[in-house]
């Protein structure tokens, strides 16, 4: 089916905006879910040379279908290299070879500290979330961290319930850490970056969204860039790729 670019979902906007952030990047550590779609969309649009790294052990994947998970056999067949997880974390991530890594988040604070462990207390959680997976070490070692997540007052919080993956802490990362930390956050409302003091600000706003709407969906007083610009809506090409190739069943995009 051919897409009508006037009609698209919040998730389609979020994923298209994420994919565009990958322009000019080379080596990308891909997470499960929306990051997976965004990276594969970027390879078909802004960054054909993007090398995909999956924590399951793959460098240079060439998937012939959208991988259902980060451990899909289509990521193996035809890849450049498949190795042990220990080597992916040691020789690629910890060695500093990852330019950008995509993370999801259940909660994030203004410094980009991320919680994917629990809502509530750790010992008797209200909601037990999946935990770190590779996110903790990715957030410390990847050169730049991109976060992609839905935005509500329950996800953009004054203080996260648990720091699974450290961001800019309370404004400054120790120099000895390999990676630069969170660089951009993409939600259904806009695109956020971080100031020199490690605090998040609204950099781009998606079509039809207002600053008031952003504030209403943020648990702190969100800074707004004086150069705030509008995101372009998803293009017909982007929508066609998402709808027909990358997520035909609409699991992540609708």
């Amino acid at each position, binding site marked *: 089916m051919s897409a009508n670019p006037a009609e698209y979902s919040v998730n389609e906007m979020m994923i298209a905006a994420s994919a565009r952030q990958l322009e000019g990047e080379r080596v990308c550590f891909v997470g499960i879910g929306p990051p997976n779609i965004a990276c594969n969309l970027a390879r078909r649009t802004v960054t054909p040379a993007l090398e995909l790294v999956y924590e*399951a052990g793959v460098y240079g994947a060439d998937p012939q279908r959208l991988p259902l998970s980060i451990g899909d056999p289509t990521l193996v067949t035809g890849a450049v290299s498949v190795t042990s997880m*220990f080597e992916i*974390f040691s020789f690629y991530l910890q060695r500093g070879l990852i330019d950008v890594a995509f993370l999801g988040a259940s909660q994030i604070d203004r410094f980009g500290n991320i919680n994917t462990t629990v809502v509530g207390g750790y010992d008797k959680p209200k909601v037990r979330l999946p*935990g*770190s997976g590779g996110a903790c070490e990715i957030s410390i070692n990847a050169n730049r961290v991109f976060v992609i997540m839905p935005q509500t007052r329950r996800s953009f919080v004054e203080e996260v319930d648990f720091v699974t993956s450290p961001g800019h802490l309370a404004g400054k990362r120790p120099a*000895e850490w390999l990676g630069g930390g969170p660089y951009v956050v993409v939600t259904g409302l806009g695109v956020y970056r971080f100031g020199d003091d490690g605090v998040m600000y609204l950099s781009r706003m998606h079509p039809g969204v207002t600053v008031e709407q952003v504030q209403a969906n943020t648990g702190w007083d969100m800074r707004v860039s004086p150069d705030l610009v509008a995101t372009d809506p998803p293009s017909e090409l982007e929508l066609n790729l998402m709808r027909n190739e990358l997520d035909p069943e609409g699991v992540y995009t609708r």
Partner: protein
Amino acid sequence: MSVGGGAGGKVTTMHDAVADLVKDGDTVAIEGFTHLICFAAGHEIIRQGKRDLTLCRMTPDVIYDQMIAAGVASKLVFSWLGNPGVGSLHAIRRRVERSDPAPLELEEYSHFGMVSRYTAGASGLPFMPLRSYHSSDLPKVNPRIVELESPYGDGTVYAVPPLNPDLSIVHVQRADKDGNCHVWGFLGCQKEAAFAARKVIVVCEELVNGRVIRSDPNRTIIPGLVVDAVVAEPRACHPSFAQGYYDRDNRFYVAWDPISRDPAKLDAWLEEWVYGLATHNDYLAKMGTEAWDRLTPEQCLSEPVDYGAYSPG
């Protein structure tokens, strides 16, 4: 007791391997990162009513949701808890969030921490250093994750302790009767989990002649030296997958979600698919052949390499 050496090598049945090598209270790892997860071994442990196990896995998957629902475990050592690509493991969440029907102790790491633990265990090291955990809350809830100064005065790293399971169960594509194994595709931490364990059960898609293994020694991920029992059980990973043999059955993962949410449905599922069947062959017979048509990939062979024959000159 049928495990051990001899002319038939270490080949035995899943029933006997689990009966002989899984003891109540053991620390058991069934590894395989999305790939080569041996569901059939988990089902046999459930059937034999093992209790009080400490289950280790980087990614407790649907198989651990089933095992923990069936009451075999009192503790879980892990790094990512979920039904990949689908959502939550609800039986495990009930035990963690509401102690329903009983508490479940958690010992939690990140992925790199877990693979480093297996690697330390496989390497005979008292700890493995890694660059992770700085300013994370994980060390606060897990005192085994400790900060460590570099002896060269160039900052700190974190350490994790070795993980040496009493038993690791690893699924592989090819094994010979002595337990020498070829694995391809995602390697996960199969090798590290095998070398780290005190006992190892290898389950294979195909039992092959040792000559096949020796034709490509660089492909041998696990040597029979560390293996105690070999079980030939094709398709034992369903709904997980075996590269080149069958695909992940995603429909099963999606279908598990509503079952897992409802304890009555989950019990009925266990009754129908585990307790009500004697072996994995029965499971395959009950499944029928339709799914396998859908799940079996076209062939895509590796280019061979030439090792050369080096005989007396």
